[in-house]
């Protein structure tokens, strides 16, 4: 107890972790939803069927709410680099600041300029202009994702940097920094995971309307698109992107891989644990149910490949919360597998024409939407916990990164402040989203003409 209150690093980490996890609940939906909007807008252009326009109008409102909360919770993230992680910024600002600024200037300007046009500009812009606005917003969200993942990838796998005369980091090669191989894999994995969230939410609202017997045409549209896209994305998020991501961890951060698997002793024919709890005190996995050789095969391509265990590394190189890391990784994988099964079954039922009439499946689809949020969060926890004790892998320790001039009490105070503020924000967001869902897509294609007058 005393040790936690005396460790400012803990509070700075907790605050950053809390604010980023909360923030990322919103962009993951907008990044995923953006492609649905582009797709439906494109279908509307091609077929002239107004049901697609209705879908775009409805989902643009949900998108707008998420976007607004994403904006207001996102701005503190950037400022915390200076307020809470001043020593890290001092050390690596010349490198990571580049992509933080580029994210703002290349992505957020684009997104925020066109998001209003997407939500209210349908009549004014015409079908083609509105389609272009949807593409601009989707593009902006992807660019933003890429730049922030380049920043994170640098922390996982630093490339393109040089150490300056004053000991801080500078850019040696901008192209090497921006084209970090880690970033490509992470970007693909992360964006697909965002599409999983988007498709589950779309399917859940479709299932809700179907169970209620409301808006049947729209419900069918959401269910079909949500389950099919959900199947493709859930599959791709596991293979090849998730697989590649794990291989990269295995190659560049072998100690992280050992901790993710709760593997203390190294060896060939390394198993994957389906069930089991790592016990750091006794240095073993409790009640394991394992698939022998699977980890060797997945990580290095052969069942006989040697996989390092935690004991092959000095203890101060171990991630500092092995249990949490292990659970995060394993629950993410389990959820990811269940997503493929659920969406695969739903797609099958859809082909057989039984999706809208299968009450049980609709219930499951309706209630499943929180799980991709959990899986996304756990994926990020795996990434960030796995990198510990490093802030920049191999270069800079997390304990060296926080602001030494900020007192413990100040950090705790602002953390409590964020907790309260974000609770209120969450209640508001859920309430207003619920109102939009309850109102539903307008059947008779009413678009607010008064809004257009501003345009």
């Amino acid at each position, binding site marked *: 107890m005393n040790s936690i209150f005396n460790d400012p690093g803990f509070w700075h980490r907790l605050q950053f972790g809390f604010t980023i996890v909360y923030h990322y609940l919103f962009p993951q939906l907008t990044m995923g939803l953006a492609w649905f909007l582009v797709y439906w807008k494109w279908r509307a252009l091609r077929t002239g069927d107004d049901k697609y326009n209705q879908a775009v109008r409805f989902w643009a409102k949900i998108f707008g709410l998420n976007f607004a909360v994403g904006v207001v919770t996102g701005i503190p993230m950037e400022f915390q680099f200076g307020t809470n992680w001043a020593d890290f910024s001092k050390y690596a600002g010349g490198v990571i600041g580049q992509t933080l*600024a580029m994210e703002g200037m290349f992505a957020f300007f684009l997104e925020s300029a066109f998001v209003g046009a997407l939500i209210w500009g349908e009549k004014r812009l015409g079908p083609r202009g509105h389609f272009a606005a949807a593409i601009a917003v989707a593009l902006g969200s992807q660019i933003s994702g890429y730049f922030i993942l380049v920043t994170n990838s640098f922390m996982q796998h630093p490339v393109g940097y040089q150490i300056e005369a004053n000991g801080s980091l500078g850019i040696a090669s901008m192209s090497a920094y921006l084209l970090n191989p880690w970033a490509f894999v992470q970007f693909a994995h992360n964006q697909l995971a965002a599409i999983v969230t988007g498709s589950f939410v779309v399917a859940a609202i479709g299932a809700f309307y179907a169970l209620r017997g409301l808006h049947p045409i729209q419900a069918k549209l959401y269910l079909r698109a949500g389950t099919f896209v959900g199947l493709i994305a859930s599959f791709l998020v596991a293979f090849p992107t998730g697989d590649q991501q794990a291989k990269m961890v295995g190659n560049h951060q072998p100690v992280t891989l050992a901790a993710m698997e709760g593997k203390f002793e190294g060896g060939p024919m390394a198993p994957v644990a389906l069930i089991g709890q790592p016990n750091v005190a006794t240095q073993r996995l409790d009640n394991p149910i394992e698939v022998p050789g699977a980890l060797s095969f997945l990580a290095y391509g052969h069942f006989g490949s040697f996989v390092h265990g935690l004991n092959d590394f000095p203890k101060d190189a171990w991630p500092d919360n092995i249990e949490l890391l292990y659970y995060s990784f394993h629950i993410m994988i389990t959820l990811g597998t269940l997503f493929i099964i659920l969406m695969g079954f739903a797609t099958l039922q859809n082909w057989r024409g039984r999706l809208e009439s299968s009450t049980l499946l609709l219930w499951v689809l309706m209630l499943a939407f929180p799980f991709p949020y959990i899986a996304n969060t756990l994926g990020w926890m795996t990434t960030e916990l796995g990198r510990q004790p490093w802030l920049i892998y191999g270069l800079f320790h997390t304990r060296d990164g926080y602001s030494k001039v900020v007192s413990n009490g100040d950090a705790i105070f602002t953390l409590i402040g964020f907790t309260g503020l974000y609770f209120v924000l969450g209640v508001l967001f859920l309430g207003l989203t619920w109102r939009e869902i309850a109102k539903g897509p307008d059947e008779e294609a009413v678009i607010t003409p008064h809004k257009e007058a501003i345009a």
Partner: protein
Amino acid sequence: MIATWYAVVSFMLIIYIVLDGRNFGAGMLHWFVAQTPEERRQVIAAIGPLWSWHEVWLVGFGGTLVAIFPRLMASAFAGYYLALFLILWCLILRGVSIEVGGHINDRLWQTYWDFNFVLSNFLLAILFGAAAGNVARGVPVDAQGNFSMAFFTDFNVRGYVGLLDWYTVSIAVLAAVMLAAHGATYLTLKTEGPVHDRCEIWAKYLWIAVVPLLAVVLIESRIVRPDLPGRALFNPFWWIGLVVVAASAFTLLTGLTSGRELRAFVGSNFLIVGLLATGAAAIFPVMLHSTLAPENSLTAYGVASSPSTLLCASFWWPIAFALAVFYFIFISRRYAGKVSVQRDTQGFY
């Protein structure tokens, strides 16, 4: 190179202040110029679709500051810890009140959010004003280049100063009045009907109030930082800033007296840009003046990234800026024209 980047980073912050400043101003006046619920929706609709675009300038500024002047960003942001979180929370509150107010068509609900909207904008104007005052006056930077400060100490401007003292408070008041005047000028241009007529009167009185406040702040600045004017005389940007101030003051004055609203608003924008640019030029190259010992002060040359890092940034920044200008043109065309009560207040906002 470093001087150019100092100008660029200052420019981004100034753009943010002048763009979001209109929202702060409009927000502060919200309850005074708009009296019926419909009129209040009209004011929100006048700033509604663009506030997030304006806030992106703050994000762009923050990121660029980390990349170009990492040690300044680290020292200043950690030093201003609580004050910055107040700003961030007010920005959250402000954004939320814009977005959720119009979602439910209910008197009580909207009154509540309108109140939060006024309060958060008022606090933001005061806080940004006090922040500007802190940059001008300096902060207790120690020999390691760090500082941490209380909200207020003895209200004096030397030694271990606090965030608030007589000088920074007077700049905060000036900022609130000037941004309110700026907001009134914007709303005059952007609205029609009773809100327009009230804003027109408010704008005139507020701009008149700015004159003595500005004079007081200038005299105070001479007392607080006697070292500044001498150096500024040799900085061409300071002179350019002065010319911009003079020209825009004239534009604003003629715009206000002749009822040419766009002219007045352009003048108002450039007046704020000119004043802030003059200030930024006057303190250069010191970015954070130390009130303890001048040799502790953080200069642009001392806190900048390496030349190769700066060079990298000079490749992408102009492209990003050109794109931002392009979006600005798109936005200006799309949201041109006045916002009226009848047409615009039953929608999203």
